[in-house]
């Protein structure tokens, strides 16, 4: 087993354990911390694939901005330990069945497209900063601008809601 393999399995295990821990933890802050571990582990996986820019942005945007906001809100509301209600009916055997189905579907998809996954993992030129920006601002400029417009509308909506509460 070569070094990249070892690093991959360590990061993958970290991501999976973090995700499971996120559900098992009772306190919202501990759950948020687990989610940060997942984000950072994912960034490490991106780095392993040679996507430096995506890895850094993953940490800056998800690990930094979004999760800091999560932690901030949890602290501001001073949310305590979660109260556990009775389990949902889906959490029993039907849930397990669904999980098995989903896992099988994902595994089948990966198995079917083995070659293209391999190729996607080695898109060195495309995952560089220049490749990404050329993709965004040349090939997909209209979808990109439309997405920014959508986000702007959401921000305006938040401002309107906040103003209404004041009045």
């Amino acid at each position: 087993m070569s070094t990249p393999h070892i690093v991959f399995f360590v990061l993958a295990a970290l991501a999976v354990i973090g995700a499971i821990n996120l559900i098992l933890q009772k306190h919202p802050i501990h759950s948020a911390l687990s989610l940060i571990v997942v984000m950072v582990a994912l960034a490490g996986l991106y780095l392993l694939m040679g996507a430096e820019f995506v890895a850094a942005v993953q940490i800056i945007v998800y690990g930094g901005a979004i999760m800091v906001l999560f932690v901030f809100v949890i602290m501001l509301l001073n949310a305590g330990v979660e109260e556990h209600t009775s389990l949902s009916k889906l959490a029993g055997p039907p849930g397990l069945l669904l999980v098995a189905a989903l896992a099988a579907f994902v595994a089948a998809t990966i198995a079917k497209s083995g070659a293209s996954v391999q190729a996607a993992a080695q898109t060195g030129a495309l995952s560089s900063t220049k490749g990404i920006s050329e993709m965004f601002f040349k090939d997909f400029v209209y979808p990109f601008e439309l997405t920014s417009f959508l986000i702007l509308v959401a921000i305006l909506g938040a401002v309107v809601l906040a103003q209404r509460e004041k009045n």
Partner: protein
Amino acid sequence: MRALLATNAELVITIVKIALLLFIVLTVNAYLTWFERKVVAHIQSRWGPHRVGPHGLLQPLADGLKFFFKEDPTPAGVDKFVYYLAPLLALALALTSIAIIPFGPDAIRLFNHDIYLGIAPLNLNIGVLALFAITALGVYGVALAGWSSNSKYPLLGGLRSSAQMISYELALTMSVVGVLLMAGSFNLRDIINAQAHHPEWGIFGWNLWPQILGFFCFFTAAVAETNRVPFDLPEAESELVAGFHTEYASFKFAMFFIAEYTSMITVSCLCTIMFFGGWLSPFPASWTFTHYLPSVILIPFGLWVIMDGLRYETVFGRIVLPGVGTALTALGLALIVLPKFNNFIQPPFWFLSKVLVFLFIYVWMRGTLPRFRYDQLMAFGWKLLLPISIVNVVLTSFVILAKMQWGHP
């Protein structure tokens, strides 16, 4: 053993570099506290620390020992895991960010290996982004410390600091976009080399002049990010006791302290790299006589240290200080005699000098400026710094576009 060393040479070199840099950074940290107390004292017409050793030079050692031996109580009702995690996180992230900084352009040839100054590899093409990623995570140390202490002042301090860091991170990131556009790279080495296009311009070739707006925004936002005066609201002692680290004692407190000073050093390095030409000399390249400047500074300073040390009757004054002085003088003389060594030392010399100037400005500001009020702080970040940095990005883009259109060099 020899074969193992040969096959893993890169790994061994990196580990040695990490250990060396860690030692240097922690020592500099300790003496930065001495420097800060001394400079602030002189600004306020006091002497500052002067009892422990000549000029109080042994004060950082005494403080360090005190941190080790103080009782380390864990307050009741804290969230144990997060309470212990927070200082570790703060320190680890602060120290990691130093690893990305390059300190000089040339390699030392040792044991048949080119050893560059700085830990990160030469082609770290996401240098700036990686630094921002680490800074972005740095908020957690403060926020989690405030929350896990289960006490109202730390919680308020933690909330304040996370709000402040989120607000100023935007301006911090936007303000360097101009520099990145001019360099066309995220690589810190490329950013410095982009400022060396006109070797005869010296200081006027640096990014400072075209990016003066960006520098203003960057430095202000960076001071706010490191929670220093005049933006030290998270630890405003008259309002919040000591803010987020109120419930921390002994070495856990020291870890926050070291983290703060390390981020000061990182920010100073970053300012130097982005706007002040990194390791480039401020003089035109043809002024080769300026290469003797390190010697001109080192020799008189070394002689003064010898003279000064002999005035004391203690072991440290009589033996250590003259020893250090002799070493400095010898280094200065060696630089004159060995031109090759002198040429090698030039870039790191300028880099460290600039960093020292920025550290002095940090301390100077602490001795001069009063603290912002909280609403002023928020208004300053959102209504002044962010718009200015966005205007700077637009202006820089237009100028670069115009140059591309009309073919100016």
